[in-house]
């Protein structure tokens, strides 16, 4: 009889792991709370550094999990340790006894309206990075004018922010801001584009090239300083105040659209899952790995594994690599216990 593996979360970590685990010959169940697979990445337009279109990527990932049993709009109601492994009760009424469980529940985008001074949900032309990607995917958004003269990006919205309760760097926002700034400049060559940052954390393959291109080839203005407040002018534009810390002067600009780079926060659902499965939460609020060097994909409990942003902020390549590693670790674990 095939052994059962349950994967919680149908984002890119869950999809990649499902493919690998299924290919290794296990009966694989994928449980996703929303009505579609692909997670946050599915709603993104293109991915850095090679500007790969997201839709075909996700489509390929989904088509690669034929044979995996997928439960959409389903949550885990309970996890109980049993002799064979874990018994999971799902919200669709199905119970599964699994020999191993992979948690790939991902992250939650910071709710930008919590940074009240930026006026998301108050001023007509303030949007988030996710809103901009949706617009690039063809969704209409009246908050983005037909011909903007000036566009701003605010880095670290809800990231590295103790007052917002999230002290972690989200890793991908700096690079996403640069990617989106370039994309906007390509669409609106006459617009001035500003990036307001506190540090630029660009560590990945080709990231530095992107940054140089943004300045040299696209003329994007990088302002080292936090935005202090946003307000609306009488003609409906945005007045943005910031400090340019490199020249030591306050700065005030008028923009047509302001994009807030909402950071990654731990998924609030993991708190419930952690209680159900008796998993530990780390000091950063994410799930706690056995250790953060060589066993990041292993939980403190036998037979429960992690992949992706449930243990911390991750890039897409890191997430996919972790998913593959988790699949192999589960395989080795089951071989040892066979």
């Amino acid at each position, binding site marked *: 009889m095939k052994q059962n593996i349950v994967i919680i979360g149908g984002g890119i970590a869950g999809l990649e792991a499902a493919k690998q685990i299924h290919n290794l010959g296990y009966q694989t169940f994928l449980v996703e709370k929303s009505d579609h697979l692909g997670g946050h990445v599915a709603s993104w337009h293109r991915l850095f550094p090679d500007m790969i279109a997201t839709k075909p990527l996700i489509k390929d990932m989904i088509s690669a999990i034929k044979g995996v049993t997928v439960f959409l709009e389903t949550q885990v109601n309970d996890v109980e340790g049993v002799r064979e492994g874990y018994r999971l009760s799902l919200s669709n009424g199905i119970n599964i006894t699994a020999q191993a469980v992979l948690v790939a529940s991902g992250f939650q985008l910071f709710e930008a309206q919590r940074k*009240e001074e930026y006026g998301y*949900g108050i*001023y007509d032309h303030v949007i988030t990075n996710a809103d901009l990607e949706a617009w690039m995917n063809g969704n209409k958004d009246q908050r983005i004018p037909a011909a903007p003269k000036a566009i701003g990006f605010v880095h670290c919205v809800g990231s590295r922010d103790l007052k917002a309760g999230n002290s972690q760097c989200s890793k991908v926002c700096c690079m996403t801001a640069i990617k989106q700034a370039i994309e906007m400049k390509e669409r609106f060559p006459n617009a001035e584009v500003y990036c307001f940052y506190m540090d630029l954390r660009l560590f990945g393959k080709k990231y530095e090239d992107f940054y140089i291109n943004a300045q040299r080839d696209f003329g994007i203005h990088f302002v080292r300083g936090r935005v202090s*407040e946003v*307000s*609306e002018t*009488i003609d409906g534009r945005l007045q943005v105040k910031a400090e340019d810390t490199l020249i030591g002067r306050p700065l005030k600009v008028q923009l047509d659209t302001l994009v807030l780079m909402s950071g990654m926060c731990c998924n609030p659902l993991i708190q419930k899952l952690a209680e159900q499965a008796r998993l530990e939460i780390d000091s950063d609020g994410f799930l706690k790995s056995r250790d953060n060097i060589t066993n990041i994909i292993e939980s403190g409990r036998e037979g429960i594994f992690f992949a992706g942003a449930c243990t911390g902020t991750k890039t897409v390549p890191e997430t996919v690599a972790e998913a593959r590693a988790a699949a192999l670790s589960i395989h080795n674990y089951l071989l040892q216990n066979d």
Partner: protein
Amino acid sequence: MIKDGKQKIWADYQKEIPDDHWYYVRSCIRQNFFPASEKMFLEITRNVLGKDIYETPHHTTCGGIAYHADTIPQETAMTMIARQFALMTEAGYENYCPSCITSFGNYVETLETWREFPELEAKIRENLWKACKREFNKPKYLAHTSDLIYHWRDEIRKKAKHLLINKETGEPLRIVEHIGCHYSKMFPHKGVGGAEYPYVLAGMVESWGGQVIDYPERRHCCGFGFRQYLVKANRGYSVSNTHKKFESMEPYKPDAIITNCPGCPYFLDRWQYVIAEQTGKTYGENGYGIPVFTYEEIAGLVLGYDPWDLGLQLHQVAVEPLLNKMGVEYDPKAKYLGLNKEDLMRPEMPNSIKCC
């Protein structure tokens, strides 16, 4: 502007305000700047609304001006505050309402500091005992007096004789609301509506028929800024901040400004004359300035009090344009008559800004 978004924020920043029995403390400076405002607060709350508001002549300054001017240490200010609380305790009250925004900020800061550092509270209690053999309970509720008028705004509306509506056009009057910096910028959850989009004055304006203007420099300091003005060499910063605000609000053509801080109405009012002298520019209609009011003065006008009993003749910027729009009856000849009808004499009128 998305009104729903503001309403969501306002819903997050509501505070419990008991309906009666308040211990009241005055501001150090408001009686000099806008002499009838505190009197009007007591008149409205006690005689119009029938509330129990207790006041004692034994209270002192909270030390706020000295504290924010860096001339006394925090422990000294805290000990003065402890004495104020002792007077409240001795009078048998547990709800405390200061008239001054800076005092309110100081009280909040002190209570929050004591909550974080109980050992400091113990030391202040010891200081107070050594200084004057007094003991105190901390207030159960702390509210600024504008919180109370906000709390009773709809009761005032029910008794209104005039509304913030243009008598000629029937349109809502366009009102700039300016919140004192110490009201909620330090502790957003202690103010009605929070720090970024405070609702305390906006709620009054809406209840009394006016329209609130949200302009780009709404959050900016009035110009007082304590050391910006108190240090004489810095006064250029003070007037330039005020100038920035008026330049920003000018396109919205405000009919009036409502404030809840001792310093703000003073500087927004007086600096309009200085700006007019320096630049020749005025921001109201037909060479007038934009009249600036305290919330008690606006409440008094809404309730039908004589504008000269509200002390409006002591404003630098003429208030008559707003009185005319609201349809408030007034006797121009009585403007400079004292309570006993004695002639107070006329102030010298400037040429740079039109005054009545």
